[in-house]
């Protein structure tokens, strides 16, 4: 009797947890769900009141933003892909050797590491104006390279923290073995340690890619048309298309999907980077 009562109350608690989970998941994801649904609706279905959940899906909106309508959306998506990939790679190739020097030789541990972790927390608007003026001077406004440089800056702090955390756990005997073979530090770093670090390099790439893809402020300030990323480009739909919510929703969906899908693989590293970053910073 007592046993079954206990398992009953356990079941109630379990049910409660599920309800809380479902409600929260629905509420926080509501804009994403609604946007994706809207992107498959016809204009008539969008304007029906009350909003409907059952409708015949159409690809009309996607065809319009990608092929038919005179939009630059494909261009924006290509821009974002190149900028995010380029910025992430640059951040990796600058941070990895630096983390190695910090971990193995302690150079810069006391000043460089805390300094760079702090960059993550600075209001980026501080740099918007001088970078705008600098880029204007050297002709980097509205270029892929300019945006790649910026997104690398934004990605470096997390990359450095995750690399330092990972390299600390690689036994020093690995380096010693390389040294016995007469390898230089450069060779040990890139030919031995870097391949061993593949999991963390991939994680850093994914997180940097997501951060860079989602960047908005600098895309808004530093690009006008050629290098405009999708985060900025997709917002044009609201004004230029006015009430064409279907097309806007399709553009949003395409702009949001890549980081959301990558995020499913990368999210566990966010918690790690934040906690270890604060401890070591």
């Amino acid at each position: 009797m007592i046993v079954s009562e206990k398992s009953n109350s356990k079941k109630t608690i379990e049910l409660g947890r599920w309800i809380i989970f479902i409600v929260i998941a629905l509420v926080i994801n509501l804009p994403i769900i609604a946007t994706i649904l809207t992107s498959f609706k016809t204009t008539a279905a969008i304007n029906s009141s009350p909003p409907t959940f059952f409708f015949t899906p159409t690809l009309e909106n996607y065809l319009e933003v990608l092929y038919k309508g005179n939009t630059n959306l494909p261009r924006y998506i290509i821009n974002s892909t190149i900028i995010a990939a380029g910025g992430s790679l640059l951040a990796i190739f600058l941070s990895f050797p630096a983390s190695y020097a910090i971990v193995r030789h302690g150079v810069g541990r006391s000043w460089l590491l805390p300094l760079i972790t702090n960059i993550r927390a600075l209001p980026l608007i501080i740099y918007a104006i001088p970078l705008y003026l600098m880029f204007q001077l050297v002709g980097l406004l509205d270029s892929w390279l300019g945006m790649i440089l910026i997104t690398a800056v934004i990605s470096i702090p997390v990359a450095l923290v995750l690399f330092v955390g990972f390299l600390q756990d690689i036994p020093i005997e690995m380096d010693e073995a390389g040294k016995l073979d007469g390898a230089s530090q450069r060779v040990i770093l890139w030919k031995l340690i870097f391949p061993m670090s593949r999991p963390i390099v991939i994680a850093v790439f994914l997180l940097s890619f997501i951060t860079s893809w989602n960047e908005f402020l600098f895309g808004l300030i530093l690009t006008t048309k050629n290098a405009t990323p999708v985060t900025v480009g997709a917002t044009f739909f609201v004004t230029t298309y006015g009430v064409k919510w279907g097309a806007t929703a399709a553009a949003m969906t395409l702009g949001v999907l890549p980081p959301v899908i990558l995020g499913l693989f990368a999210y566990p590293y966010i918690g790690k980077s934040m906690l270890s970053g604060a401890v070591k910073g």
Partner: protein
Amino acid sequence: MNLNPRSERKEATKFLYGLCIFLAIMLGFPSIINLWFSFNEVTFHNLTGEGFAGIENYKNALENPKLWKALNYSLKFAVIATIFQVTLALFMVFTLHPLLLRKPWLTAILMLPIMVSPALMGVMYRLILNEFTGIIPGYLNMLGFHVTLMSRSMIQYTVIAIEVLQWTPFAFLILLTARQSLPYELEEAAAVDGAMGIKFNFRVVLPMITPAIIIVTFIRFIDSFRVFDHIFVLTGGGPGSRTTSISIYIYKLFFQRSELGQSVALSFILLVISLTLLYFGLKLIVKKE
């Protein structure tokens, strides 16, 4: 073993060059530009400056009443948003941790919002809050609530709510990571002592994840304070200057009103304040650890 540690260290220092030079150009140099321009009389047409302006730019910047309004809004925004984000995240850790321990993949569903660009999140909310076709007003009306969340009086709270809804998962993720790193024996020991459920969460778990709570509060406060993206696409800082955060204020000063001097002076002040706060903030956190 023909390398001695000293020359090894020297060689390793070279590994830092790339990163240091890059950051010096991308962040160090711009900081100097801010400092230099803030003391000069500069305009868009004459970027080399027409002469030393002394503290004129700073004076103009600080005497502008709109600055204080923006600062005030940013602070209010950050305080309210942070309190809600951390409290909700804590509630989620307490209630959902056992469930997510058994079904870890459910966590991913809760992480979707933080993968979305805040700017696009803003546009999506614009879509669902739209007075005529949006699903939120649609269903609220059906239920008999007639509130327009985009109205003059509501909008400043609506944008705070959006911040909370998008970033609570982030706070939750960090607190959950901290919660999951606690040893399982803890639960068993507590069960023996009869401390279960709510009591266990408040008496045992809460004190043990306090360092993570402090870190999360700190990070979310800073991030919320510098908010730009979703407000910019939803309201552009308006109506009037009701939703103008400090980031939007500086942006407008420069790109819409061409107040170069004032905006660089403010940028420099903000840089100094941020670095000071971060320095002391991190010191506090490291001490607590």
